[in-house]
């Protein structure tokens, strides 16, 4: 320590205690003038000292570049504004990032980065998730390596999960083999995530992977595995439960020329009975119910079910989670064709549909949207955003309601959702229609539509 710093340390000590600093002042400092002494000491401290950094101060690895181009620079402030304005709206952040993805872009990391629990984030963000989660000194995924059974342990969990998801989309059997070999050694939360990966491109070859998992010690893992087996037509539950449920619903035939089977979920006498039926719908698979009713699965899904929407929810959930893809798709189409079936219910059947399937049916879904909030259409669309055409939207009753009730506070959500659903051309058309209907061209409710209209596709292939 240099001489002035030694003197300053002494002065600090006496001033903290409230003693006279004169005896400790350097010889050429005014020891008898304490204010002058503190002025000199303060100045010396600020000029002579430097911050002492820890010796092991080391930067983190550089944030990796993604395999997708960043969004256009001029639109970044617009995205930041939208994220801030809709931060309290559930699903808004997801929708905006998915719209970017649908146009072939990734967000700029200064505007948005995925959080560890953002399971909906596309696999393209895996390097950022891994970078965020990696503790200093923890190695990231081996560069250039592909995930295999042998390299599984070398990958950090986040990158491993997203790499598996990516592999599942490209080579479902290879991903299934890795899960079969490694799931048992993972803790329950991770086992559940691994089984969720099998939802993508589920095929009969996955049955041997799922069968041991259906006996898993975690009830959540086992239940999901059983539901997936049910979709493949495998697994056997308790026939007594299925029979009990069958007795609580009715099957009839409708139509004069084209005879079709229709399931009815009638009102029951007591709330306890209603609750029991809902519970049974959660325990019995769709195939078991069809068998107990002695009706072909295809026949049972040929027409929309009858009953109060609130009573139909457990049935639709049962189909959505346990029916084969064919049965789920048939029921979804039947419900889209039936004016009496609420879109909010039908949308539950679209959750596990492929993006192509959702895109192809989105026009019909929009025509059936009941609410100017367009919330059901958003659920139906999933991540298939930015594709609805202006003609499809223009024909939607809910869109006319939205234009008529633009003063309603809920119109904020309605215009936001429409802004995510429509194509770039349609966004411009919707803005004109809204202004023609009386909205100011500068109205902030049109902000998402303006963003959409300005966001040209990148031209890059969207994984």
């Amino acid at each position: 320590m240099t001489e002035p710093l030694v003197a300053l340390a002494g002065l600090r000590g006496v001033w903290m205690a409230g003693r006279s600093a004169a005896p400790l002042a350097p010889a050429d400092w005014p020891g008898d003038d304490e204010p002058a002494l503190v002025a000199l000491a303060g100045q010396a401290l600020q000029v002579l000292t430097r911050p002492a950094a820890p010796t092991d101060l080391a930067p983190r690895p550089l944030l990796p570049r993604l395999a997708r181009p960043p969004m256009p620079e001029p639109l970044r402030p617009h995205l930041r504004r939208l994220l801030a304005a809709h931060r309290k709206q559930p699903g808004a952040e997801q929708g905006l990032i998915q719209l970017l993805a649908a146009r072939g872009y990734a967000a700029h990391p200064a505007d948005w980065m995925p959080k560890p629990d953002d399971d909906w984030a596309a696999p393209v963000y895996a390097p950022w998730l891994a970078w965020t989660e990696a503790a200093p000194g923890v190695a990231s995924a081996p560069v250039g390596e592909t995930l295999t059974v042998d390299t599984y342990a070398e990958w950090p969990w986040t990158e491993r999960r997203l790499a598996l998801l990516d592999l599942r989309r490209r080579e479902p059997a290879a991903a299934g083999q890795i899960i079969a070999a490694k799931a048992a050694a993972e803790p329950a939360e991770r086992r559940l995530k691994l089984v969720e990966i099998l939802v993508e491109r589920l095929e009969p070859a996955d049955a041997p992977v799922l069968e041991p998992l259906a006996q898993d010690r975690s009830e959540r893992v086992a239940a999901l595995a059983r539901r997936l087996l049910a979709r493949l037509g495998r697994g056997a539950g308790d026939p007594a439960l299925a029979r009990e449920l069958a007795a609580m619903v009715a099957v009839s035939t409708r139509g004069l020329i084209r005879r079709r089977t229709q399931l009815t979920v009638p009102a029951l006498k007591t709330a306890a009975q209603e609750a029991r039926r809902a519970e049974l719908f959660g325990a019995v698979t769709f195939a078991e119910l069809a068998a107990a009713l002695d009706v072909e699965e295809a026949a049972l899904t040929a027409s929309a079910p009858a009953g109060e929407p609130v009573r139909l929810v457990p049935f639709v959930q049962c189909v959505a989670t346990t029916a084969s893809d064919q049965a789920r798709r048939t029921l979804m189409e039947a419900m889209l064709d039936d004016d009496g079936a609420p879109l909010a219910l039908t949308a539950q059947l679209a959750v596990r549909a492929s993006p192509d399937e959702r895109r192809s049916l989105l026009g019909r879904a929009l025509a059936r949207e009941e609410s100017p909030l367009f919330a059901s259409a958003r659920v139906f669309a999933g991540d298939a955003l930015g594709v609805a055409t202006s003609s499809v939207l223009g024909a939607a009753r809910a869109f006319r309601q939205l234009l008529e009730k633009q003063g309603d506070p809920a119109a904020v959500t309605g215009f936001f959702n429409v802004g995510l659903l429509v194509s770039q051309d349609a966004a411009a058309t919707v803005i004109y229609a809204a202004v023609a209907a009386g909205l100011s061209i500068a109205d902030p409710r049109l902000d998402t539509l303006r963003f959409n209209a300005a966001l040209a596709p990148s031209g890059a292939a969207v994984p």
Partner: protein
Amino acid sequence: VALSRSAIEAMAPDQSALKAAAGLLKPAKWDARGRVGELIWGECQGSGANPYRVCADTGADPGSKCTCPSRKFPCKHALALMWLDLDEAAGFAAADAPPAWVTDWMARRRRGAAPAGAAASSDAAAKSIDLAAAPTPVETDPAADSRRAAASARRAADTREQVAAALDELERWVADQLRTGLGGFLAEVSERCRRIAARLVDAKAGALASRLDEAPSRLLALPPAERPDAAIAELGKLVLLARAWRARPDDPELRREVVAAETRESLLAEGAGALRCASTWEALAERVATRRDGLVSVATWLLNLGEGPRFAVLLDFFPASAGRRTGAFEPGQRFAATLAFYPARTPLRCVIVSREAAAVDAAWPAGEPDPLAAWRASLLAAPWRLEAPLALPPGRLCQDAAGRGWWRPDGDDAPALPLAGDPPAVSLGARISGAAGLWNGARLSLLAAESDWGRLSFDD
């Protein structure tokens, strides 16, 4: 469609507001005027350092918003904007979409809140645009002028006397804090500073009182181990400032630090000696702080991309009751302007004299190899300074084992500097090619950085 003359007259709070608006009708006073449909906006250079942002809806539900601190609604700037729309509509450039700050206002405005009807019913007849536009005869009375000058000189002498007495008391107060121990001072720093600050307010040393009011928050923001040295520096600067003022009470910088800043008019007056610098400026960041004296300070930090002082700051104060206020520039925005700097040993605070049409495209100047050299130089020139902007060379942002942020230079020429607050995640993974921040002797508050991920912002 512009509002009619009668509608503007009806909206005006009084005839004097219309008269004041008439003085703002020269297009040269306005920048960035635009329109989308019935929405108009513009930036007007008023008495503040930042231009005022003014926008108005001239549609069926008229309304307006201005960032000036006037209590009149609509203020003269909003009236002038609507008036210009009536008289000189071609000066408003048609845009596809309004700027973000206009959209922000549209989102927050209460519909149907314009008091046009109420104003019209009260004294609409008493307000006239024609009358406001008529030139006002200038009356000169040499005797009255000399009386005013004499009164002003008396007031200045009186203020000097009171401030000198208060500064004597301040020095005694500093000595008392040392005599009773800094441990006790730090334990009740808010109370003790508040008391002496109140005494300084009474003695018309308002600027110094505000500085003392904010001292506790500066000290308590640091970890306890660093507070004794920070308290020594804080008290030492007060003594240095008091003694410097006693030596040169008419020094503009010292007067600004102790009493109050000069007005924009006096700064721009001939003979004021304000340094003027025409250049391209980049808005680095905006720092908004609510002070204990009830004022909100809005500081817009600028980086000079050409010749002259490297940094500048546009500083405005608003009463906290006036609601949310912001400056006129988005972080990263570049503009060409002539700035007038308040006279100072290291010129920094400034006002905009005029804005030029287009900013040139220029790169950030290189950072200093040892950024603390600028801090030491500024302390040697003006040892009472509390903070100084630094231009940082290439480096990285890091976190230590406790999670505290640091700026670390690439080379060994400069020391690593501890950061105030947590840096955003992306900045920890970015290669920083240059950065600007405010150093207060203990912590670096980053304003902006250029990196391999582009420009990075650091919000408060």
